[in-house]
């Protein structure tokens, strides 16, 4: 590309044909009109959604608040909340796509209503979003919010880096959203196997959107992993030894380790694919020395640990929740820690099971098959330990517990289908069929998503100061559980009946009834998401009845419950001193919770920084320029990135001080409020009378 070329094509390959309704207008056939309308409808939702946000922010003069209180905030709690907000937006989009796909397949015998290309974009964006822009931001947000408080820290080790990670993730999510409006997304699935995604077979912008949104997200996640791991190693309160950390923090640590080691192979693989596509390299082409098997290995070297990046935080959440709502100390803490670490290590030894059918010999397949089954051992131990936590407890059937029951039972079934798939000779039969689709959704929905929704219910009162509506939560939980069963159990059967995944249509009439059951299940899941949003609305409306300002609505066990709800931005007026596991439960039991120290000190906090949003905006512009070959934008964004880094290097005044007096005033006011709060029994846990102070009922602390 010469200099002249840059000016000749200022918009690169971006033209009017990138608009979702262009083809429909040029060639108004019936199929084009239906697909054009669906795509245009989706694009309008993105555009209208963005416009409504802009109008509301302007109307209520909230731009300043958004900028100074949220976007530039280095506070791990606000960053966590923003991550979760991204996750919910992306969940809504990817779920609607899922319903659309199930509808298409329900009518798939006669060809359905979507074009193959449109359908392929749907399954590619659905998978990409659910993994990288729903599950990852959700768990990153929850860890961000909870983990520093659980270890008694004021923030993560690198608060501004945290904000940059968020910016990069948001930029990636933004690219995927923009692909709905301008151009097309990849049709190569969420793992984008070459040579299909090479320029010779997919010359359009689709794979480039996929490459750059993933690259942005994976860089963000690598930085997040480093940040979390360092925080857990270095920022723990005095006395918080590793073996006293709450189990959720343990899983956060293991997930961070996995992020650090597993994300780089993905970044390398997508970078190599980009070199193939942009500069004519031959890493993964058919010809001239390229080999797509290298991509498969690199991708799954990331992809399998990624599965555990997703599931481990959920395991941590369930451990906290089951212990708290059973009114009992977590059974087998040491075992659970060992199991978590075992899974972390084993997760790097099984990647080959994603391509048993690629032609390697029986010894190799058998070795990786057995390694895959081995992961069932620590996972099984976890399930037994959770059940033993309920044993001789006082189990309260709250929304998080209903999810937990659903999780354990469904997860066991998903684990069984996983063991089946770990057998190469069975995998040869069900690989690439919807049996596989059923299996990984069986792990990802009850495991990852239920875990994250439980975390949302559990810690929402901590973050916002009021409880979520219990009744709508229950409706949503039941719809999720039964909707999941209806949507995915039929796919197991369809899979053994030979229905391949990713097929827009089929010619066997015997598939139709079960496809319809699955479609109805998907609709039920849509109802579940709807009731989740309705629950939020109802809860906000009735927030004054459900306030839990004292901060401990569930009779909690770990340190995050020892603060007000919402907590002050420095989390703890005085850094707690920890003497054992379940530090807050111990304090309550010994009657020394809610005490004010003799002296308060000044607290140093990081200043707001525009680095996060600026880096995100630059990342987005760079990605967009690369996708559309708008080279001036690429060069400008690159220069802007370098400049930003240099400018940040000169920033000296990066902290501010909260004076001891102010800390003392805040803290004493909260202590007084707690003392004025009636402690409630667990019977009244979900009633307005629960103001966030738990009456002493034996909750048990390990000796």
């Amino acid at each position, binding site marked *: 590309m010469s200099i002249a070329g840059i000016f000749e094509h200022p918009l690169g390959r971006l033209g009017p044909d990138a608009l979702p309704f262009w083809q429909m207008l040029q060639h108004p056939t019936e199929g084009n009109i239906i697909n054009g309308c669906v795509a245009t409808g989706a694009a309008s939702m993105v555009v209208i959604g963005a416009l409504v946000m802009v109008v509301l922010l302007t109307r209520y003069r909230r731009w300043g608040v958004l900028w100074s209180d949220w976007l530039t905030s280095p506070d791990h709690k606000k960053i966590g909340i923003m991550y979760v907000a991204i996750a919910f937006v992306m969940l809504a989009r990817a779920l609607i796509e899922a319903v659309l796909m199930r509808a298409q397949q329900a009518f798939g015998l006669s060809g359905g209503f979507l074009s193959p290309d449109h359908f392929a974009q749907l399954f590619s964006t659905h998978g990409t979003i659910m993994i990288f822009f729903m599950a990852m931001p959700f768990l990153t947000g929850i860890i961000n919010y909870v983990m520093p408080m659980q270890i008694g820290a004021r923030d993560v080790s690198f608060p501004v880096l945290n904000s940059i990670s968020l910016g990069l993730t948001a930029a990636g999510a933004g690219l995927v959203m923009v692909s709905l409006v301008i151009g097309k997304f990849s049709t190569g699935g969420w793992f984008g196997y070459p040579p299909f995604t090479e320029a*010779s077979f997919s010359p359009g912008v689709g794979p480039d959107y996929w490459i750059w949104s993933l690259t942005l997200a994976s860089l963000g996640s690598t930085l997040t992993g480093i940040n979390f791991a360092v925080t857990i190693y270095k920022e723990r309160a005095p006395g918080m030894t590793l073996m006293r950390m709450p189990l959720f923090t343990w899983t956060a640590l293991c997930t961070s380790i996995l992020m650090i080691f597993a994300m780089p192979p993905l970044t390398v693989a997508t970078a190599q694919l980009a070199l193939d596509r942009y500069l004519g390299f031959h890493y993964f082409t058919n010809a001239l020395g390229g080999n797509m098997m290298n991509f498969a290995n690199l991708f799954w070297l990331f992809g399998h640990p990624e599965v555990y990046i997703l599931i481990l935080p959920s395991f941590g959440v369930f451990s906290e929740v089951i212990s708290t709502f059973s009114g009992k100390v977590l059974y087998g803490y040491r075992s659970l820690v060992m199991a978590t670490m075992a899974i972390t290590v084993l997760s790097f030894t099984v990647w080959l099971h994603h391509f048993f059918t690629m032609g390697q010999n029986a010894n190799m397949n058998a070795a990786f098959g057995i390694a895959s089954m081995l992961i069932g051992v620590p996972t099984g131990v976890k399930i037994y330990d959770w059940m033993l936590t309920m044993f001789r407890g006082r189990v309260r059937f709250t929304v998080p517990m209903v999810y937990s029951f659903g999780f354990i*039972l469904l997860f066991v079934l998903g684990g069984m289908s996983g063991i089946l798939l770990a057998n190469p000779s069975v995998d040869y*039969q069900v690989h690439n069929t919807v049996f596989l689709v059923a299996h990984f959704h069986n792990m990802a929905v009850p495991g990852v998503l239920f875990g994250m929704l439980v975390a949302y219910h559990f810690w929402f009162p901590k973050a916002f100061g009021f409880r979520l509506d219990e009744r709508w939560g229950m409706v949503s939980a039941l719809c999720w559980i039964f909707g999941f069963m209806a949507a995915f*159990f039929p796919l197991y059967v369809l899979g053994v009946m030979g229905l391949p995944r990713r*097929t827009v249509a089929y010619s066997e009439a015997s598939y139709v009834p079960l496809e319809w059951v699955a479609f109805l299940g998907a609709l039920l899941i849509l109802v579940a998401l709807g009731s989740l949003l309705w629950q939020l609305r109802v809860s906000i409306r009735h927030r004054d009845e459900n306030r839990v300002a004292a901060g401990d609505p569930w009779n909690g066990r770990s340190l995050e419950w020892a603060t007000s709800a919402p907590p002050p931005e420095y989390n703890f007026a005085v850094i707690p001193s920890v003497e054992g596991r379940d530090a807050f439960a111990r304090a309550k039991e010994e009657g020394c919770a809610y005490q004010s120290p003799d002296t308060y000190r000044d607290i140093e906090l990081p200043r707001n920084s525009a680095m996060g949003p600026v880096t995100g905006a630059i990342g987005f512009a760079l990605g967009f320029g690369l996708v559309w070959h708008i080279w001036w934008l690429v060069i400008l964004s690159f220069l802007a990135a370098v400049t930003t880094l240099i400018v940040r290097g000169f920033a000296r005044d990066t902290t501010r001080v909260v004076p001891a007096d102010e800390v003392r005033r805040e803290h004493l006011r909260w202590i007084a409020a707690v003392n004025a709060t009636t402690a409630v029994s667990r019977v009244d846990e979900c009633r307005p009378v629960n103001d966030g102070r738990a009456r002493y009922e034996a909750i048990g602390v390990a000796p």
Partner: protein
Amino acid sequence: MISAGRWLVLSAVVPMLAACTGNLHLSFLDPQGPVAAAQRWHFFEVLGIMAVLVAGPIFLLLPFFAWRYRYGNKASRYAPRWEFSRLLEIMAWSGPIVIVVVLSFILWRDTHRLDPYKPLASDQTPLRVQVIGYDWKWLFIYPDQGIASIGMLAMPAGRPVSMQITSATVMQSLFIPALGSQIYAMGGMVTRLNLEADRPGRFLGENTMYNGNGFHQQHFTAAGMTPDDFSAWVQNVRAHGTPLDARTLQLVAGRSTRAALIDALPGKATHDGNLYFTHVSEALFPAVVQATLDGRAQLPRSALAHADPDRPRSADAPHSASASTP
């Protein structure tokens, strides 16, 4: 229990299959060959062990614990400090370990026994078939018979079929569920698959690896035949098939579905919607592998049929413009 329910669903669905799909066998749970039969046994063996030893206890104990130790039941024992029992801990670890060890033996045995590269035990010499994956159809070459087909993989029942598989385009996966394993087809590489049909019948064949717009139409019928019927079929193809010359192969190699290819080859399709070719050289398959590996569009002249008297010998056209140029 849900697991038991799934068993019921599976066992109810399988007999239905043959009835409602016009005798096209879809599933390995309705096996038509020794490999699929062994896979079915393996599937139920593993599923049965896990249903009894893994799901059973958890599905019984979890509801029992949740109900017995519910908050409202003050009669149940409450031990809030209890957090460890050596005996239970040993059981929690050793149970899954024992199950995995047992399953590992089964896995090791069957992975070797059912290795798709391993020739099947038989007193007959296997029928050789070479498979080339194009977008979006499979070309089945019978090198010893000098014929080829699209849409139909005929095989004599009771005689093993030994397949060599490659792709002239992106990655695909060749799969005949009622007979046995699937295996990837990859450009410039040759994978292998050994299958056998026990008895005459029609079996669903497909590609399971998404490869573009025509993916869902990349089906074929695998047909088991009596040896006599198979010989007759070969004779029939030889008598009525189209010579696979350069022009025809160029059309085959284009990105098109079987239906579109038939439109492009007027008068060449048979009434069953398949295409049959004669004068197929044994050199074709290795030539396609090598050309894909080299990124060459041209196939050597020796790999193509020259039986068409209407065309001069020098008419070798590019074999695949879209597929093998990087």
